[in-house]
């Protein structure tokens, strides 16, 4: 929800970023992105394939494949680009992955506990032992309606597409980030899984945090209602509107915005 006087979490100005492409050298994907996100807000970034949506998410999180070639990104007043990826995460920036990775032999609960305790250390708080942490997890898995047996399984190994995405939201629930970027979290989800994932995200929204959804489809936005919808095209945000913009895109497609 938009509230007057709420704190700015992220301020991106004129962000440019490039990626190395075999045979083509350095190719600029982001060509001057501006975006401001305040606490309590829900944003959606839409656009066709290749418009730079996912690149934008990865650049903010610090993926090593991308080089920032211009512009700034301030996260709660800190220059994001001076921080290592793990420092950005510890500062409260969370990315739910489009393609969650599988980690053989590492249980979900072990990964979550290590991540959680790393944050506790960062905040000067006590680490939780496995038993205490399990109590916390038992509460958190309710957010994504997950079977507790998934906690003992290797991270994402043998999970269905929907289970992987739920697992990402579980990680978000445990880490309680200030800003969560959901990179195409809705892709590959059937309608029940979509509802569960969206429900989970809605439960985690507070006046002090914010969510950015990167998506192709209006569908997700029926469940998680955005305050702002941005359209990305050719590496820039070319239009910003309210939730009705998503409906308009659904009807008219993206072509009419390309020239903008």
């Amino acid at each position, binding site marked *: 929800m938009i509230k007057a006087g709420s704190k700015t979490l992220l301020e991106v100005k004129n962000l440019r970023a490039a990626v190395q492409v075999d045979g083509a050298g350095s190719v600029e994907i982001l060509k001057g992105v501006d975006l401001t996100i305040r606490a309590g807000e829900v944003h959606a970034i839409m656009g066709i394939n290749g418009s730079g949506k996912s690149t934008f998410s990865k650049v903010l*999180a610090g993926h*090593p494949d991308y080089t920032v070639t211009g512009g700034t990104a301030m996260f709660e007043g800190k220059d994001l680009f001076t921080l290592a990826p793990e420092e950005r995460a510890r500062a409260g920036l*969370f990315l739910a992955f489009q393609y969650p*990775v599988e*980690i053989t032999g590492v249980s979900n609960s072990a990964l979550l506990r*290590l991540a959680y305790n790393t944050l506790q250390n960062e905040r000067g708080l006590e680490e939780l032992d496995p038993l205490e942490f399990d109590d916390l997890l038992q509460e958190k898995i309710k957010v994504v309606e997950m079977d507790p047996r998934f906690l003992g399984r290797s991270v994402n190994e043998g999970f269905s597409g929907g289970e992987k995405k739920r697992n990402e939201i579980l990680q978000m629930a445990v*880490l309680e980030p200030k800003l969560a970027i959901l990179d195409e979290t809705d892709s590959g989800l059937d309608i029940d899984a979509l509802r569960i994932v969206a429900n989970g995200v809605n439960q985690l929204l507070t006046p002090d945090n914010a969510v950015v959804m990167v998506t192709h489809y209006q569908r997700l936005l029926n469940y998680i209602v955005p305050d702002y919808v941005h359209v990305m095209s050719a590496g820039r945000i070319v239009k910003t509107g309210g939730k009705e913009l998503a409906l308009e895109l659904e009807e008219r497609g993206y072509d009419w915005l390309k020239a903008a």
Partner: protein
Amino acid sequence: MSTAIQNLVNQPYKHGFVTDIESEAVPKGLSEDVIRLISAKKNEPEWLLEFRLSAYRHWLTMEEPTWANVSYPKIDFQDIIYFSQPKPKKQLASMDEVDPELRRTFEKLGVPLHEQKLMTGVAVDVIFDSVSVTTTYKAKLAEIGIIFCSFSEAVHQYPELVKQYLGSVVPSGDNFYAALNSAVFTDGSFCFIPKGTKCPMDLSTYFRINTEGSGQFERTLIVAEEGASVSYLEGCTAPQFDTNQLHAAVVELVALDNADIKYSTVQNWYAGDENGKGGIFNFVTKRGLCKGVNSKISWTQVETGSAITWKYPSCVLLGDNSIGEFYSVALTNHMQQADTGTKMIHIGKNTRSRIISKGISAGRSSNSYRGEVKIGSRATGARNYSQCDSMLIGDRCEASTFPTIDVQNTSAQVEHEASTSKIGEDQMFFFAQRGIGSEEAVSMIINGFCKDVFVHLPMEFAVEATKLLGLKLEGSVG
């Protein structure tokens, strides 16, 4: 691959110090005279000298094997000191009399030797440059009939047992390095668990090569009689030298009816520097004979050191219903080369074997799994399951798998699975995005990868192995 992975691998060797104790060495080189000298110095009986000499004569007719997927300059066997021992001062009655310098070395290694071992219930037979310095816990074990002592001592005190079993699993002419070992072995451990006895504690040996340019030729013999069981731990570390050192050990295990032997190794010999200078050449023959019905031999190894590892702990499943197991983690980094695996020879009926091999390669190293599963014509109902997984860190290393399956009985079931994976940037980025630094991430990924093997290590070894892998890979990911 990012610099963090690279940095993780570039951790200097922690155990590289030389203990300054006077060593009494036999002159360099190998001949019948040298063998006679070794035998005389050790005051050995005639039959053992004959065993050595016949092995030596056999060795002279043999060729160094070249089939392994490793390359190294030709070894000059005349340029090796075949025997060296700390100069004996007097018979040692207790640990307090052990050279303080030596004790400091063990402290640096973190070997919890005496009181600490008493507390944890592990008896340690410490091998220091070929001579057993002390054996703890011996008396206590002796009360229940278990013999655990240095090989030399066994030769003098239990000659009949040694004579009966020495060379019964690995014949003196078995292979080039086994023959060399049989000719010149200096010391090692002997362990005998009598009928019906369960060894109440893990038996542990720490090997360490100390003198520069001296080969280490250990001989280990473990016999478990009918219904006996024992868990044996072997840990190895060596100081660093610029020259390569040769290590050619032989380990023989014999399990009679219903006996059970579990042999665990954590090997961290000096691996050479990041350019491949120095390091141990580890050419080891380890074999267990499941001689009796329902017997079981289980090898668990974590190989992280040595410039070259050539090692195939194997099981000969002679007794009906006997079981052989091989659980292995082999990690290579920098210029290390490992060619390791196992042989499971099924002879008896309903024999079963299980092979779980995890190879991790980083830097410019080469890591090969080589295995043979042989089901003989009498081995009705034999079963084998093999799983060989390789993990690559960075893009300059190499992983190979050379499995051989030879089935001569149609009722046998043999399964082989293999996989290759890579610690990718995507995995590392995922961990980073969850706030986890690269070293912890690599350690978590590797330990997850090795979990199926680590669960078979005794608790304290599992902890050590976990730490060791993290240490060896420090600086290699990022």
